[in-house]
């Protein structure tokens, strides 16, 4: 298992683990009550993290293909 793939568990821990602490209305961020902002931010971060994993996977695969040649 490539180490960076463990990044995929970060969204679950951040989004859900943070809920008890983020469960509040204030401060409003971008007009959203804080709890809604919190989960929304994690949706965006999930996409970013999955993109990073995908990019690293692709780079690794290209290197492996290069080595074989």
């Amino acid at each position, binding site marked *: 298992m490539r180490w960076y*793939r463990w990044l*995929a568990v970060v*969204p*679950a821990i951040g*989004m*859900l683990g943070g*809920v*008890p602490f983020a*469960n*509040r*209305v204030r401060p*409003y961020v*971008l*007009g*959203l*009550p804080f*709890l*809604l902002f919190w*989960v*929304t931010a*994690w*949706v*965006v971060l*999930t*996409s970013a*993290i*999955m*993109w990073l*994993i*995908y990019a690293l*996977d692709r780079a690794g695969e290209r290197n492996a293909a290069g080595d074989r040649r």
Partner: protein
Amino acid sequence: MNPALFLIGACFLVALALGIRARRGHAMTLEQWTVGGRGFGTVLVFVLMAGEIYTTFTFLGGSGWAYGKGAPAFYILCYGTLAYGMSYFLLPVVWRYANAHALVSQADFFVRKYESEALGIVVSLVGVAAMIPYLVLQLKGLGIIVSEASAGAISAAQAVWAGSVVLVIYVVASGVRGSAWTAVLKDIMILAVALALGTYLPAQLHGGFGAMFAQIDRLHPGFLTLPRTGMSPAWFISTVALTALGFYMWPHTFGSCYTARDENVFRRNAVVMPLYQLVLLFVFFTGFAALLEVPGLTGTSVDLSLLRVTDHAFGPWMLGVVGAAGLLTALVPGSMLLMSACTILSKNVYAKLARRDVPEAQVTWLARALVPVVALVAVLLTLRGGSTLVWLLLAAYNVVTQLFPALILSLPNRPIATRQGAMAGIVAGEATVVALTLTGATMGSLFPSWPPVITDLNVGIIAMLVNVVVLFVVSGLTGRPHRYLQTAP
């Protein structure tokens, strides 16, 4: 005929035409009918999978829960996101195996992995049992849309009958290619409608999101956060976790991953799909705006809030556009559900129980013949009704999530569970779900003296624990798993 009904009817005809057109040039074998010949690229798999996820549940149920419950509705935004992260690792493994063995259904996967036809039948029945409430949910949504659009001239019951006739015609006429192309149309419409309603209503009626939320917080203190007990953070976390595990266990979702051309499709989708979830944010905004504009809906009628506020703010033409989008959100997933359920009953239950070689033509014929039968069962259950859309979905999820442990443990080259263990775990888990549902038990009623952190947990956790414990105990008793694998080819 009023403008709303006219638009909705026109939209149905377009969907039907797309379905019939998509079918041309492809002979309708079972594989073609269900997995589109495995030739779909990123875009089509994306819309097909998104098509199943953005159902009337998200559209009417999501706004309905924002309207009726407030912050607990946010769970809908979370579980899909986490499931997509999981899909990056799960789906390529599943797809590779399914492709190598030319599998068509989810049950095929279990049959092949555990070398057990009986397990395939159990998995099939579980899948169908879970799909029925999900189908009921789509029909309820169709009923709500048509009867609201007709301003009550068509009763909800009549609308459910009409909607299911429409659904049956659609499924029999087109199959999965129809769903894929209608899904494209549906996604464009749902995006446009959700963004338009979700930005316009708060901005025009309340002076922006911030002002709208401030007003809700003033009128309904505590509505924008999770309550201390009941739907507390413990409920939220356990519900999101369980639902995320169940996300890809749906036979039709599992099956639509077979339609992909290569495994990179899933990895790219795992990056894009979470962002697509953000549409839900605008669905919530609409529900919250409705709370201020058209207050007073309670019980199951909270599901009407999105349509009511549309009618209130824009009148019948816009209601027609929104209704048409809503029709598609019921039609696309509804057709996938109906088609999967019938294919499963025919191919994975009937043909296996027959204990002889059933010709494929007969299996295909039976699958189609079952379409109106399954639809009828769903209609009858819908008319008995009495639950909001979200509760129906949560109940269905509890059933289907029980497949998760056996699936995940089958993924390594040497399955970690034995076939007996997998079977016993699923059966014990489902028995627990049925017992809990029939008695209406909650963690609070089972453990009354425990602290809220425990009593607020989603009761599905109990079924999952029973499932996992039975699975491991029986697997342990029935011998070393890799010994049985050596006998497998």
